[in-house]
């Protein structure tokens, strides 16, 4: 499990405790996850460091919000290195991030389902 219940509870508190709004935010990431993963992979393949860094930055923010510390750290590293202009293993790193992104998406979808079914207290 990558996501943190604690992080999601904190986000729920920030938005005023509205489960429907939380579900909308999570769904927004679910919708964006695959294009983001694709974007970071293609940027790494093509050596477009600017796009690579920005995509990593976006995923990093969401990963932190949802409590996925490992994915956030991977993104922070590649974002920093893309700013410095030296990403030696960009394709490999971006594949890890893309996989983490898709995994995070699936966990969030499962969380929404559980939330809707009342399985989450």
């Amino acid at each position, binding site marked *: 499990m990558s996501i943190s219940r604690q992080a999601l509870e904190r986000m729920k508190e920030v938005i005023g405790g509205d489960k429907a*709004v939380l579900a909308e935010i999570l769904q927004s990431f679910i*919708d*964006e996850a695959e294009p983001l993963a694709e974007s970071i992979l293609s940027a790494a393949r093509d050596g477009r460091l600017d796009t690579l860094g*920005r995509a990593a930055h976006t995923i990093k923010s969401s990963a932190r*919000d949802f409590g996925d510390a490992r994915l956030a750290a991977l993104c922070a590293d590649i974002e920093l290195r893309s700013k410095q202009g030296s990403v030696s293993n960009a394709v490999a790193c971006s594949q890890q991030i893309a996989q983490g992104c898709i995994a995070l998406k699936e966990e969030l979808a499962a969380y929404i389902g559980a939330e809707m079914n009342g399985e989450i207290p």
Partner: protein
Amino acid sequence: MSRKGRILVVDDTRTMRLKLAAAATALGHQCHSVGSGGEGLEYMRANPVDAVLLDVVMPEMDGFDVLRAMKSDPALRDIPVIVISSLDDTGSAVKAIELGAEDFLPKSFDAVIFRARVNTLLEKKYVRDAEVDYLKQVQKLARAAQILKIGNYNPSKLGLGEISQRHDALGDLARVFADAAQKVYERERRLRQSIKTLRGGFGLIVLGIIWGLVAPLSRMASGLEAHPFGMAFWVSLLSGVCCIAWSVAKGTVPKPREIPWGYFLAYALLGAVVSESLLFIVAGKVEASIISIIIVLEGFLAFAFAALMRVEQPSLSRFAGLLLGLGGVLVILYDKFTGASPGGLLWTIVALAIPTCYAAEGIMLAAKRPENIPTVTTVGMMQLLAAVILLPIALATDQMIYPSAKPGALELTVFLIAAASLSANVLFLYLINNLGSVFTGQAAYFTTVAGIGWSIVLLGESLNAWIWASLVFMAAGLFLVGPKSEAEAEPPPSLDAREARQT
């Protein structure tokens, strides 16, 4: 915080936009979100915004560019901004604050921090708005003081309405200014109205004296066997030529296509062709003093026409004034008709058409007048048009007067009538423009009095005590009618009056 703030979220990531907007909405604020810096600037220029939550890393126009654009725009530079940055990117936060951002928030903020920062920012914004508003109102008050200093006491020109609603020392000061100005303004307005009445009354007396001369002169001309249509032609031609010569010298003659010909045709028929021809015809049959008396009916008819056409505001006091004037005329008529012949009575009734023409002319001039043509030019064009109409009539009726090589009494009389008619028409038009048709209609009373006086002096006609008694009625009538109200803005009611109404 009870007040609802208007917050703009600028972030290219939809997930973050939704989170920030939901967080701000949860605090009770109104929120609008956009996905780029350009859209954010566009929204701020078109809508009031109290605070901006701005992402730094965005494609095309990033958060720094947005801040630079805001600080260089006087309309946006005072909107406070919180930049949203990652905890591991403090360099960006510092740079944003150096560019003018008020504060920064990490992307993974908690509810307490968010509430504290947003609400504190909004409180500061409201305090600053209140200070700016206060300063603007102080400037308005200073401007009002400048306006008062140059002697303009019209309260509606001071622009103190909004400041007077304040419940503080500034509001007290504005109310003191406004009330003092209103009192002075009302006093000045009454004074201006009194001066206008006096000046108008003097104008009426002069007009009456000049116009009163026409009836006895016409009577004298009939004694010299002058033909009425020939007389009317020469009087119109001479006065028309004088006015147009003046207008040509001043360059005020309009181009033919700019002249409202229909209007001038009606004006010429009422003001010269019909009225002057009738006057010269009746002058041979009726005493000049009787014609002068009949002319006073113009005042009553002018009021009746004005009230019917709603050209001027009728009122009970003005109506009573006109009735008093009419009462004076009836007193004279009662005295004059005692023992009058049937022929004299018939011509007297025909003469009633003369004041009817004058009254209709007065109303026409007051209700609609070509504004781009000066008074003297207007009179000149009317008189020349009348001469053009009268020429074939005089020729067809064999009433044309041909000037003799050696001018005599007839030529002198025609010249004097033309001079009187010209002066009276110009003054008549001037008074109508400045005092209104009803008040100017009161000139008929003075025409009557002057006509009687001229008849006594020039023709040796006799009068009795009834006529002098009727003058009292006429003077009282004139006082009650008064000039039309000044066309200036009414000041708002004074504070004292408003408070008195509320209690």
